[in-house]
């Protein structure tokens, strides 16, 4: 969607702008990737595989703090979108950087949590629960990092005054990352029976 993009990009036979439609398709395929992992986790958990009682060892506080951080960053990114719609570039820029800051806090808490677990000997190969724990949260953290990088690029772009619609697109992606966490939180931190 550069300035010289093809005409095709600006057509909209469905009524949904092309960029947003593509992001929704991306979200649909991400549902399958995370959904597949979560489905496997649930299958093993309901099957009573030994090791899944270790869910009680995860830190509920850390999980809750991270949920809070992600929910708040979701708020800021949607406010960034609202601001850019009014044409307020500087405010939008600021809100995007609040969101990125939220991402850093999230990763910090995550790192603290991982450290604590590894010191206590709960490494990825200990049992199936910890394998799933590190795989799922790790994949999620990769999505967080990816989102932060893209957001940083976009923030400078909009300050220069182009590609405003991308704020909404990265917003949808960020909310999706938030949604995944909303489901990972009860699975990994709360349901410890």
């Amino acid at each position, binding site marked *: *969607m*550069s300035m*010289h*993009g*093809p*005409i*095709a*990009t*600006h*057509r*909209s*036979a*469905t*009524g*949904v*702008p*092309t*960029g947003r*439609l*593509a992001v929704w*398709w*991306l979200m*649909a*395929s*991400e*549902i*399958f*990737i*995370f*959904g*597949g*992992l979560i*489905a*496997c986790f649930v*299958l*093993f958990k309901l099957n009573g*595989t*030994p*090791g899944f009682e270790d869910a009680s060892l995860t830190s509920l506080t850390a999980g809750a703090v991270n949920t809070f951080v992600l929910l708040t960053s979701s708020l800021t990114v949607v406010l960034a979108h609202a601001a850019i719609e009014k044409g307020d570039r500087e405010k939008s820029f600021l809100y995007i950087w609040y969101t990125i800051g939220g991402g850093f806090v999230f990763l910090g808490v995550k790192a603290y949590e991982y450290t604590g677990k590894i010191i206590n000997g709960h490494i*990825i*190969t200990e*049992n*199936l629960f910890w*394998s799933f724990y590190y*795989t799922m949260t790790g*994949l999620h953290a990769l999505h967080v990092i990816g989102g932060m990088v893209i957001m940083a690029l976009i923030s400078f772009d909009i300050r220069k005054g182009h590609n*405003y*619609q991308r704020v909404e697109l990265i917003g949808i992606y960020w909310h999706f990352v938030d949604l995944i966490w909303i489901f990972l939180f009860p699975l990994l931190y709360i349901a410890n029976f």
Partner: protein
Amino acid sequence: MSQAATAVQTDTNAEHHEELSFLYKYILPTDHKIIAMQYIFTGMIMAVIGGYFAYAFRMQLAFPGELVPLYGLVGPGEYNMLVTNHGTIMIFWVAMPVLIAGFGNYIIPLMIGCDDMVFPRLNRLSYQIFLASTLVLILSFFVKGGGFGGAWTAYPPLSSVAEYSLTDWGASLWVLAVALEFVSFLLGGINFVTTTMNARAPGMKMMDIPIAVWFIVLAVILFMASVGPLIAGAVMLFMDQRIGTSFFLPSGGGDPLLWQHLFWFFGHPEVYVVLLPTLGIVADIITVFSRKKLFGYKTVLYTAFATGGLSFVVWAHHQFIAGIDPRMANVFVVTTVLISIPLAEMMFSYIATLYGGSIELKTPMLWALSFIAAFLIGGVTGIYLGASALDVYFHDSYFVLAHFHYTFFPITIIGMFAAITFWFPKMFGRMMNDTLGKIHFWGTFIPFNCIFLPLFFLGLAGQHRRIYNYNHFPDLATQELQNIRIFATVSLIVMLCFQLVFIYNFFVSMFKGKKAPDNPWNANTLEWSTPSPPPHGNFKTLPTVYRGAYEYSVPGREMDYWPQNEPPEES
């Protein structure tokens, strides 16, 4: 995006597309046509590798223990590696890039009348990821221990534990290559679907889209909806291999059957992912060369929807005897056999399209008709395997092998040749030699049947797949069965030799062929309304569509075709 709703509809787009340097035109292109060529050529190179592998292991089967000319000795480990990578390459690196990514890229923007994909740079990125996956796969043949040899289904624990597979890095690189390839096609797929949904020419309604585009998009949607769990599974398998987790290892609480489910939940829709584009291309070709409207456009479309939907609920028929719950098998038998209904109806519609036509047997038409004939055999033999009780006998036998080669060969190879011979004039602006094309056709189609028809009988005789030397099984080491194996191998060599005719024809026609007119086949769809080859930006003036894609031989018109973009006469 503010101009999105009010897209400038018929501006001349020449000023967007200034001349590009060689680097940006051919190496880092954003033009969908060049990217399509990149996919097609990469796919064809991989097809040569896959064919070479087939040659090596078929020689070993016919003359066990002998040195294979141009290869050397095929030992058991090498044999496993050859069959595994033959399967992987032919499905993931030939069928998918050529038919979906290659021809999808080429014909979607042209057929729906826009100047490019909606995300040209995403398109380039997805090709580059694909190329990386190709290189990773090729690299995996040369690491210590050799390429992965655990069958293309990669069932753990064999694939996840190096001590069992004896291919430590070969297996990991294989998983990595496949996962990269999936990511590439996910990105490409998003592009295809969005393009078709949003960037259609003004006036083109859903029911005016050519079947080829419909089917490629359906295939992409099937792919996107099925591949997710397998990407998750590939991550898990990779971690089993390299980190030592035990998602699929019973000793650590995991379950090997889980991978089979993840794999086949993707693997069965994948069959339809590669099938649908060819069916669509064939539909377009038979209408053009029989000068007929497609029989029951909507019926064909709905049968494809039904097939696609059903394909998601049949996956466990690959696992009837894999230790799944036997009661679940009954459910999957019902869904599997049900899939014959929409596919049969679709085939009936295709054949009915020929009725009352004016059939001209040009090379593309020969390929298209031979596809229908060969796919009929592949389709009906699938019924045997969908029946769980017969699967008890046929599972992993040569019957299965012959069956899916009777589907995959028509899909991949015949479909590829049909598409190439049909769109060659558009791609390169020159005609292919029809006589050489026909020689190549008969030289491919007859040996193809000679290879795979006998294998059905080997399957009936209880011969198993993936065994490098049948001398170890006294029941199978009889002279009669060995004669069949030799016959199949000789046919294969004959077929491979005839491919030289194609390669000669392809390259000579590309540079020295007769100049092609804009619309050599008198076809209706939009790609034929632009010069051959289309310039960067495709159309001088972006077209407007007035009618469906298959208005051939309309009564009361002098011409027997009626291009989609021709304005209706004032009356």
